[in-house]
């Protein structure tokens, strides 16, 4: 993986920020774009856990929900500003994420996934059965957008904010995986027994990972609530976790570009192909199977493999050239 030059990052930011401008003429596309940015933030967090640490956290959406409901509670009942409520709620969700993850630290692979599925189910049930905080199945509607210097942050400004947050998330993740901590994550993913033997404190690293990933989930959850204006237990249930996982797996796990590609392609689909809604489940199921069986590296992984085959051919050609000369 080549190091990311400042130019690339600058270009990325520029393109990302231009998109809301391009879409601002059409409120519907702006909305789809906004949802895609939120999904991108979530996908980046999921990728950190699934791609780099090697664990599939199906309770991701539940943790996002904790933050979302908390944020609404803080802004509505306590009258806080969104910009205070959001970080506090996200930290709260991160604490919950760590607490829920603690017992399953020893689990790996399928057992971890199953455990996280159960935890997600418990969270969804908690959202439904504690209506005093969450209004149960009915959900909470008319959630106010974030406050912004006396007014409300909506429209173009909100989309820009979402773009900034999403891109900040991507950049942070890109930086993190290059640090020693990030490399420890990868070591744990490959073989955590060996990692322990090499002196890596696996448990501590996993806890840090849980915390960071839950922060991603939580921040996304808060923005989702403020952006869509309506939340319910369905908005944060296991299907959402699976969808985000699919964005990552489809795009290419353990890469930075992967979640971006996956989200950019898959996230807008349910909103754009409104007439073909019925086939969305079938399509996503087929994609899951195809990706698992045939493209374990996702689209980006397949692209990289193809390119390296090309350069292999090219360098073989060069070698032949050199020999002739």
């Amino acid at each position, binding site marked *: 993986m080549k190091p990311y030059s400042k130019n690339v990052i600058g270009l990325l930011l520029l393109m990302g920020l231009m998109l809301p401008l391009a879409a601002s003429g059409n409120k519907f596309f702006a909305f789809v774009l906004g949802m895609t940015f939120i999904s991108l933030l979530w996908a980046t967090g999921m990728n950190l856990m699934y791609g780099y640490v090697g664990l599939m956290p199906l309770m991701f959406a539940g943790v996002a929900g904790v933050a979302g409901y908390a944020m609404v509670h803080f802004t509505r009942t306590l009258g806080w500003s969104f910009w205070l409520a959001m970080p506090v709620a996200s930290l709260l969700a991160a604490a919950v994420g760590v607490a829920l993850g603690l017992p399953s630290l020893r689990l790996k692979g399928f057992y971890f996934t199953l455990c996280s599925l159960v935890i997600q189910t418990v969270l969804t049930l908690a959202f439904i059965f504690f209506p005093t905080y969450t209004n149960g*199945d009915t959900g909470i509607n*008319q959630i106010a957008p974030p406050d912004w210097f006396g007014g409300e942050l909506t429209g173009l400004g909100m989309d820009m904010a979402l773009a900034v947050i999403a891109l900040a998330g991507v950049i942070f993740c890109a930086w993190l995986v290059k640090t020693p901590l990030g490399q420890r994550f990868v070591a744990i993913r490959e073989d955590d027994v060996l990692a322990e033997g090499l002196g890596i404190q696996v448990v501590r690293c996993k806890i840090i990972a849980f915390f960071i990933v839950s922060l991603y989930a939580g921040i996304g959850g808060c923005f989702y609530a403020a952006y869509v204006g309506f939340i319910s237990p369905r908005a944060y249930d296991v299907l959402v976790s699976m969808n985000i996982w699919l964005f990552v797996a489809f795009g290419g796990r353990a890469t930075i570009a992967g979640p971006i590609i996956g989200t950019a*392609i898959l996230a807008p689909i349910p909103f754009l192909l*409104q007439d073909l*809604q019925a086939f969305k489940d079938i399509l996503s199921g087929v994609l899951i199977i195809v990706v698992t069986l045939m493209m374990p590296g996702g689209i980006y992984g397949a692209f990289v493999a193809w390119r390296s085959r090309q350069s292999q051919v090219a360098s073989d050609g060069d070698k032949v050239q050199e020999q002739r000369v």
Partner: protein
Amino acid sequence: MKKTFFNPLAAAIALSAAALCTGGAQAQAGNPIKIGFVTELTGPWTFFGTSCVAGLKMATDEINKAGGVLKRPLEFIVTDNQTNSSQALAASRNLDVNDKVLALSGPTSSDVALAMYGYAEQQKLPFLVPVAAFPQLTKPGTKYTFRIEPDAAGWGYAMAKYIEQVKPGAKVALMHSDAALMRAIMAGFRYQAPRSKLTIVSDILFPQGSSDATVQAAQVRASNPDYVIVSGAGAFDNVLTNQLLDLGIKPQQIIHPYGITTQVFGWGSRSVGSIYGTFFDHGIDALTKEGKDFISRFDAANGRPPSYVENYCYVTPYIFKEAIEKAGTADDREKLRNALSALKTKEHTTGVPIEFDKNGARKEYMYFMEIQSVNGKRTYQSKQRYYIEWDPEVIPVYDLVK
């Protein structure tokens, strides 16, 4: 480094997909009057959404054949919300912004309706909810949302009033599943029961996902009730009913808060003598000529008599027609909103009054029917036993159910 290729790619995908699906809808204020109809065509409530659309299409065809509204055709843009609130919101946004619809309508599921409610109120978009009974859809302060179906807590109230007049001082057992709709109905019933001098002798709640009720039926039987109110939703309602009947409870003792055609088929002949509440049925006494006509045409086209879901969706275009004509224009949302608020008309299938209070809640009513015979899955006969009208706030509905 080809890192940035995906941004234009995403935009390109988005734009071309949009071109594909909004292709035809360029015609603007041109000719047809457009109303967004966001309903459940996939997901758990598919059946209600598609039944609703069947009724809607019949009415729209009739209206347009007769010259339309203000000499323009009336067009409902039917969109699927997948029984999912985010999808409903996205669809509403799309209809509002791209198609510039005059109003919204459509949901049969309360959850979805509540999500759209937030959007409608915020965007000052008139929203006529044909089928969705949750009381909060017309909570105090509502300006743009109007609900045609009586609220669920009111159904509970009506049941208590029915029992009060048929057997004063009765002992009642409650068996219901834990869904928002059932909780609302029971909250209304529990409020009214002591005021109607009824005693609740057993109150059993089933969590979602329950399959068997034999033990609870035995408990209910042990409490010796005069009536058992059974509210299970769909398949579980049949289980509850059959298991009560197995244990010796008589069909005449069973009351269902609401029943639609397919549910009556599900109950079957064993439930002859049972009572169910409804808002439209081919067995009610007061059917207008248009009502009878609607029933026979719907039956011929769909193989079963229509219920209140289909009726409400059949009546919705007519309500819009009348309101738009009263407003005098089809391009002004405020005028439409005011016309709906001031509407004083009758449902043209039954003659029941349609009037909305200051929050958009309709003057409420309910029929209680007794099943006389069930003919397989083809048709059934019921007789009207009771009819009641009431004002939505006769009980403190917005406090009872949040």
